[in-house]
């Protein structure tokens, strides 16, 4: 086990705590947008898919990598757009509140 792995495990453990802390105080009305938003964030697998496809040398690897890029793009783009659409509705309400000031 190299020191590289240990560094990654450190990052992993710290991220667990941050992840739990960060959603601890979310009001229930935002549970759905939060789920959808974090859904978009794990779309970062697109970065992994690009690396895999970029390093692919055999046809099989190319096909799998290509599929991964398509699926990951669906995840990222769809995730952000859906979340934005959900939150758009919260925005109009805030604008109105702002206008009353």
């Amino acid at each position, binding site marked *: 086990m190299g020191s590289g*792995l240990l560094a990654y495990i450190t*990052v*992993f453990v710290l*991220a*667990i705590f941050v*992840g*739990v802390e*960060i*959603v*601890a105080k979310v*009001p*229930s*009305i*935002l*549970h*759905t*947008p*939060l*789920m959808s*938003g*974090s*859904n978009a*964030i*794990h779309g*970062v*697998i697109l*970065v*992994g*898919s*690009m690396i*895999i*496809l*970029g*390093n*692919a040398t055999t046809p099989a*690897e*190319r096909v*799998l*990598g*290509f599929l*991964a*890029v398509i*699926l*990951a*793009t*669906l*995840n*990222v*783009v*769809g*995730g952000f*757009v*859906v979340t*934005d659409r*959900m*939150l758009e509705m*919260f*925005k109009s309400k*805030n604008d*109105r509140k702002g206008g009353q000031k």
Partner: protein
Amino acid sequence: MTRATVIDVLYLVAATTFLIALKGLGSPRRARQGNVVAAIGMAIAVGATFFYQSTPGHSLGNIGLMMLGMVIGTVVAVPAARLVQMTAMPQLVAIFNGVGGGAAALVSITELIAQRSEGAHPAIYVSIEVLLGVLIGTVSFSGSAIAYAKLQELMTGRPVTYPAQQVINALFGVAALASMVLVVSTGNTLWLWVLLAIAAVLGVAFVLPIGGADVPVLISLLNSFTGLAVAASGFTLHSTVLIVAGTLVGASGILLTRLMSKAMGRSLANVLFSAFGSATPSATGAGGAAERPVRSGTPDDIGVLLAYAEKVAIIPGYGLAVAQAQHTVRELADELEKRGVEVFYAIHPVAGRMPGHMNVLLAEANVPYEKLLEMDEANSELSTCDVALVVGANDTVNPAAVDDSTSPIFGMPIIHADLASNVVFLKRSMRPGFAGIENELLYNPKTILLFGDAKDTLTKLVASVTAH
């Protein structure tokens, strides 16, 4: 700075934006900005990856294919996300989550194949990371597909059960672990495909016994799984940004899942393993529900009742969402307020099919934020209400959750519509709600029923209130 360092710094920037985004998503005011910030971070990470070199001087190839894949993904995702109806949001989130899990599994599989074809003999922990990525990603993919089918009503929303289900599911789990061990010990790729098949079956078997009403909790859990699969891929590819983002989603997702099941008054284990809603109806429900008398009224009766009330609580549920009646319900509330009736909305945390579903819909119809009362606040107001108007809700006002210890929803916090002087149900039919449980409140003498599509009946009520 070397090229690799610049790219790593950009990845760090991206990871930071994800943190800011998740933090922002926790507050109504900053949520939308948060989402945009994360999208910018994602663009930075993807942009940087085009210049990524796995070893110095060895740039990524297949750039054309990569761009093509992204274009295809975008062309499909944007219209799907833009055009789908608000009521279909939950299943859309399920799909986007599933494909993410699928991508994570593909990344891990491809990496394993590449390692094998180079004749490399990676350390055991490397293989384990890869296989965990395959297992979790595939479970998330096939599980999300079934969740989608349930919500889209392509299959029954009821729990699907068979004898010794949990034993069989546990066996699938053991088989998956066994095939992981076999891949590592024999180094034979055949076992990888076996693992893939078992994981796909496991995802399906895991989701089948979960009833439709619980599917949102499940989607949140699968979302968390995908996060963990992404983190596993991050270990494989030595990518800190994947580890950070995946773990953040994995950890926050599990907590969010627990918060959601808590909102239903149940433990997560109960949601996942109790085949909730499949239980045969309790004696009261089974005893000829159809023949028991109910009181139904005309729109006019109810219009008068509402027009001359002092205080009305509107309790929306999934039926409102299906009928797209959020604007009509607001019209009715406006009309009542014009007459001096005090109106508020009582929002159950799990009303609709996702927590916060009702808030989103009513916000779309410009219902003022301060009129939406959360459950506890609403319950303390309800005893002073003349009318509780239940629009397409059922399980969330079912008193069985309080008085019937044999009921599967016993213990779930409910909105106490029964405390109001009169209860009006706008319902499509006598069919029980999503959880499939008979609702005693329908037979309560102070309850009046008005059958029909929520939008039609509400429109009639608006007309009736205006006329009186």
